[in-house]
């Protein structure tokens, strides 16, 4: 038994890793910061000396869920992509207390990831952060903390919830406007009328926790109706895929630990309002939003565009998209990202 144990330990420790082709990167590295070991799944072309750091949504998502689909195919061909599992999410592991589950600590983590990317692949590597949804909150916090933004070549905010108080108020208004618009178009009339009844009963000066949960749930449900009526565009199947059973993510672990981390962060995230700090941002920014995003309404995209101090900035509203334009209008989304990176790398 003793020899078997020694043999197994030796196998684990001395397993050989294949040498990487930088043009077709496919490796996992871990970043250890303050008790958390966070995997970063590297894919794509590191010869470009450009890394797109994917800051996933949730809280409770994982980096590689953003790899699925067509939108990352051309990006991986052209640049390196870093799919990072944040603290307490995806396949991250570690030992730390609940007091270490804060937005500020995750900003530190994000900075550590960027430092590691530069240390490992060279200081001449330019890093662009692409934050979606909750990842938009986290990247906005990163951008407005000290001088951290200067570690990046650019910030891509896609449907980012950088101001949750404003978020719910704007979502309420948007439900009313779109419901009236769709009823006038005779689309899903019964459903939209029930939405109208529900949303007009919400007091926007005093939105309760239960109502925020309903707003979020209904935001995803109405996307289905808009897809049925071809107001929004269906995503295409295919492209990059991460296998549920053979890929690096264990969906059960990711779901369980992500849900717990979401619960720990919820109060802080709900109270996060960064609109008044966006003026601190001076580096190039690309804001990408779906017109029918009820989760994080496009008003917040205008918010970013109008409040940042960057001279290089662009806002793109995707006319047939919801909360995830990289799925609904992937071609246009990818083209906008590549245009932005090529202009600012």
């Amino acid at each position, binding site marked *: *038994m003793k020899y*078997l*144990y020694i043999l*197994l*330990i030796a*196998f*684990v*420790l001395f*397993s050989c*890793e294949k040498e990487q082709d930088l043009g077709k990167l496919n*490796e*996992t*590295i*871990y*970043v*250890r*910061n*303050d008790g*958390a*070991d966070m*995997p970063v*799944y590297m894919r794509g072309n590191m010869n470009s000396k450009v890394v797109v750091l994917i800051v996933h949504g949730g809280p409770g998502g994982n980096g590689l869920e953003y790899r699925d689909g067509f939108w990352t195919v051309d990006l991986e061909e052209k640049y390196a992509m870093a799919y990072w599992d944040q*603290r*307490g999410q995806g*396949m*991250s*592991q*570690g*030992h*730390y*207390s*609940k007091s*270490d*589950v804060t937005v500020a600590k995750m900003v530190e983590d994000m900075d*550590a990831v960027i*430092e*590691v990317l530069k*240390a*490992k692949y060279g200081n001449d590597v330019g890093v662009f952060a692409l934050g979606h949804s909750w990842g938009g909150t986290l990247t906005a916090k990163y951008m407005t903390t000290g001088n951290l933004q200067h570690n990046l070549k650019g910030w891509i905010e896609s449907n980012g919830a950088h101001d949750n108080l404003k978020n719910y108020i704007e979502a309420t208004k948007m439900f009313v406007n779109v419901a009236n618009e769709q009823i006038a178009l005779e689309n899903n009339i019964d459903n939209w009328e029930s939405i109208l009844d529900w949303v007009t009963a919400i007091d926007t000066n005093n939105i309760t926790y239960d109502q925020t949960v309903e707003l979020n749930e209904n935001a995803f449900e109405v996307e289905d109706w808009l897809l049925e009526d071809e107001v929004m565009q269906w995503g295409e199947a295919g492209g990059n895929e991460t296998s549920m*059973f*053979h*890929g*690096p*993510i*264990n*969906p*059960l*672990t990711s779901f*369980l*630990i992500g849900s*717990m*981390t979401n619960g*720990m962060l919820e109060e802080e995230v709900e109270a996060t309002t960064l609109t008044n700090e966006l003026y601190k941002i001076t580096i190039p920014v690309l804001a990408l939003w779906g017109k029918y995003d009820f989760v994080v309404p496009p008003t917040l995209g205008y918010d970013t565009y109008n409040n940042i101090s960057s001279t290089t900035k662009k806002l793109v509203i995707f006319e047939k998209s919801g909360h995830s334009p990289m799925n609904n209008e992937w071609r246009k989304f990818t083209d906008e990202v590549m245009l932005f990176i090529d202009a600012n790398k």
Partner: protein
Amino acid sequence: MKKLIIILSFLIPLGILAQEQEKEVTDKEFKLGEYAPMYVSYYGNFVTHPGIKLGFDWNLLMIEKTKAKKKRIKTIKKILLVTPSITYYSHKASHKGLIISTDLAWRRYSEKLFFREVSLGAGYFRKFNSGETWETNDDGTVSNIGSTSRGYFAPSISFAFGKRFIIKKGMPISVFTKLNTNVLTGYDASAVAELSLELGARMTLDWGINRGEIRTITKSK
């Protein structure tokens, strides 16, 4: 490695079944042997991340109940045992896992030597991160610290069922499947549960760890 584990996991039980059919075993003899039964199984973390588990049974107590039915006598056996084990699995591009654990199990054999088992375990679960790890230093710089891992106390609950065969007198073999849930405590800022499935074979050989006599309680109705 993966292929070998899969092939072994399926061939061992299939081979045993094949032999069993050839010999048309009817022997229902049930004796706890002199030596501790040993087992080997395919261990699939989340079913599909392959690994291997090795262990042995340390029987503590057997209760043999005999019931007289109208036309026959029915005997069921229940065994209380502990099962120390070591497990290794590989989750590609994520981590490798090593688990050292001991379960306290309650196993019930039917008349036809089918068995089911429930067990509670306590173990040490270590996850070895894939690839290299980079760590932040106090001065804000980062450095490559090579391979890293973290360990967790991991209690578990498992359910198993299987069948025991007598192929060679005195050397019973069982095939079984087992569903495990390990709870990794102190994982991140809370805890996390992991599921795994085993397919394995248990053998009592004519060598190994000498267990000696097992206390047996006999009850009749």
